[in-house]
C-alpha cells in the first residue's frame, strides 16, 4: 500500500509562518511607526513623512548616509584590491597539497568574536597601542599619531574582516576556472599578464561582484566596527540609528532611518544585479 502523501503545506507552512510573523510583520510595523513623529515626549500617530523630511533637510543626519556610502565604498575597493592577489597566490603559487591548510590559516581569525576583533584593532591603533609604541621605540616618531577614532581605523577594521571573506570567495572562483582557458591563451601567444587581464580577470569578475556586493551590504549595516574603531567623531548610518534609541528613545526616527538604509541597500542591489546581467550577456 502506498503511503498517503501530505502535500507541501505541512512542511513549508511553519517556516513561512515564522518568517511572516517575526520578519515581515515587524517590517510593516516599522514602516508604520516611521510615519509617526515624536515631539518632546508626546507621540503623534498621525501618519506623515516628517521624519523623512527631517532626515533629508538636517545636515548632521544626511551626512551619516554620505559617510556610510563613502566608508563602505572605500572598504569594498580596498578589500577586493588586497584580497584578489592573495587569493591568486593561494590558488596558483602555493603547492596544491598545502592550499587547504594555507586557506584555513588565512581565515583563522574569522573565528574570533566579531566584537573582540574590533577591540583587538583598537589595541593595535590606540595612542599608546602597539604601532605607536613600535614607531616611537624605533625613533621614527616623537609623539603618537592618532589612528583610533578615525575613519582610517574603521576602514582598516572592516578591511581586515572582508579581506578574509573575499580571499575565500575569490579563491573558490579561481579554482573553478578550467585550466584550458589558460592553455588556450598561451597557445594563442599571450604572455602571463595578457592572459590575466584578458582571460582570468573577466572570467572571475562576476564572482568578484558577488563578493563586493556582500561586502557592501554587510559593512553598511554594521554598528560594531564604526562604533569601536571610528568612535563618535563622524557618525555612520547604523550609529545614527542606534543613537535614536540609546539617548531618548525615538522609535519613529529610528524606524525611518532603518527604512532609508534598507532602500539604499536595495538600490545598490538593483544597480549590481543589472550590471552583472549586462556583463554576462
Amino acid at each position: 500500500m502506498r503511503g498517503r502523501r501530505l502535500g507541501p503545506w505541512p512542511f513549508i507552512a511553519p517556516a513561512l509562518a515564522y518568517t511572516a510573523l517575526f520578519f515581515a510583520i515587524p517590517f510593516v510595523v516599522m514602516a508604520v511607526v516611521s510615519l509617526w513623529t515624536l515631539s518632546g515626549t508626546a507621540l503623534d500617530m498621525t501618519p506623515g513623512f516628517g521624519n523623512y523630511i527631517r532626515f533629508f533637510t538636517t545636515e548632521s543626519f544626511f551626512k551619516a548616509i554620505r559617510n556610510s556610502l563613502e566608508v563602505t565604498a572605500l572598504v569594498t575597493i580596498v578589500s577586493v584590491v588586497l584580497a584578489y592577489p592573495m587569493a591568486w597566490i593561494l590558488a596558483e603559487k602555493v603547492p596544491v597539497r598545502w592550499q587547504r591548510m594555507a586557506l584555513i590559516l588565512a581565515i583563522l581569525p574569522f573565528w574570533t568574536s566579531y566584537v573582540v576583533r574590533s577591540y583587538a584593532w583598537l589595541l593595535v591603533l590606540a595612542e599608546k597601542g602597539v604601532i605607536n609604541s613600535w614607531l616611537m621605540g624605533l625613533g621614527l616618531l616623537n609623539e603618537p599619531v592618532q589612528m583610533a577614532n578615525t575613519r582610517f581605523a574603521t576602514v582598516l577594521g572592516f578591511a581586515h574582516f572582508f579581506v578574509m571573506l573575499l580571499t575565500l570567495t575569490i579563491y573558490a572562483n579561481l579554482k573553478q576556472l578550467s585550466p584550458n582557458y589558460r592553455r588556450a591563451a598561451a597557445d594563442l601567444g599571450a604572455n602571463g599578464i595578457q592572459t590575466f587581464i584578458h582571460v582570468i580577470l573577466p572570467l572571475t569578475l562576476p564572482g568578484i561582484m558577488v563578493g563586493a556586493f556582500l561586502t557592501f551590504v554587510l559593512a553598511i549595516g554594521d554598528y560594531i566596527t564604526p562604533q569601536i574603531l571610528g568612535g563618535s567623531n563622524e557618525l555612520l548610518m547604523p550609529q545614527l540609528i542606534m543613537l535614536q534609541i540609546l539617548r531618548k528613545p525615538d522609535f519613529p526616527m529610528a524606524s525611518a532611518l532603518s527604512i532609508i538604509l534598507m532602500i539604499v541597500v536595495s538600490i545598490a542591489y538593483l544597480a549590481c544585479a543589472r550590471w552583472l546581467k549586462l556583463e554576462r550577456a
Partner: protein
Amino acid sequence: MRRASDMAAVAYALLIFGFIFLPVIVLAVFSFQGSQIPVPPFNGPSLKWYGAVLSDGRMLTAIGNSTLVALISSLVSTVLGFLAAYGFARHAVPGGGWLKGLIVAPLSVSYLIIGMGLLITFTRLGIPKSLFAVGLGHVVINLPLCFAIIYSQMGEHHANIERAARDLGASDVQVLTLITAPMLWPALFASFFLSMTFSWDEFIIAFLLTRFETTLPVEIWTLLRSGLSPKANAIGTVVFAISIVLVAVIELTVFRKRAR
C-alpha cells in the same frame, strides 16, 4: 624573472598574513599582561586576567546564556529550514518562487534592522526584553541560511530513494525521519553548526532585545565600555581558542569523512 615574481608573491602573502594575524596575536599576547592596561610595554606573563574572567559570575552566566540561545535557535532554524526545503524540493508549490523569496529575504537585511523591527514590534505589543526574544531573532537570521543550504543539497537522486521507501509503505513522517534526514546529514550538520556560530557571535539583536540577563557578546561590549582591559583580551582569547578547537574537530570529522 620567474624568481622575482615568486619572491614578490611570497612577500605579498606574508604581508597579508601579517595583517590578518596582527590583531589576534596582540590580543592573545596582552591577555597575559601583568599590569592594568593591555598595551606595551609587556610585563608578563601573568594568568591573573584569566582568573578574573573565571571568577566573573556575570561573564560565566553570559557564556551559558549564549550557548543555550545558540543551541535552541539553531535547532529550530535547522528543523524549520529542513521541513521547508523538503516541501519545496518534493512538491510543486503554487507561487513557490515568491514564497521561497520570502523565506530567504531576511538574508539581505542587516541584523540591525531586523533587531530594530523586532524591538519596536515587541515594545508595542508589550512583550518584555528577554533571552527568549533574542532566540526568536536568531531564528529569523538563521532560518533562511539553513533553508538555502539544505535546499541546495536536495537532489533528484534523493527523491528516487524516497519514492522507493514510499512504495514500500513508509509514511511521509517515516520517509522524512528515516530516509531524507540521514541522507542529508552533512547539510543538516553544516546548517546547524553555521547557525550556532552566527548566533553565538551575534551582538546587535541580543543588545537590542535583552536588558539584565544577556549573552556573551553583549557582556563583552559592556566590559569594553569601561576602556581597554586585559580582561577583555583574556575572554576574547578564550572564545577564539574554543572556536579553533571546534573548527578543527569539524574539519577532522565531518569534512574528512565526506571527502572520502
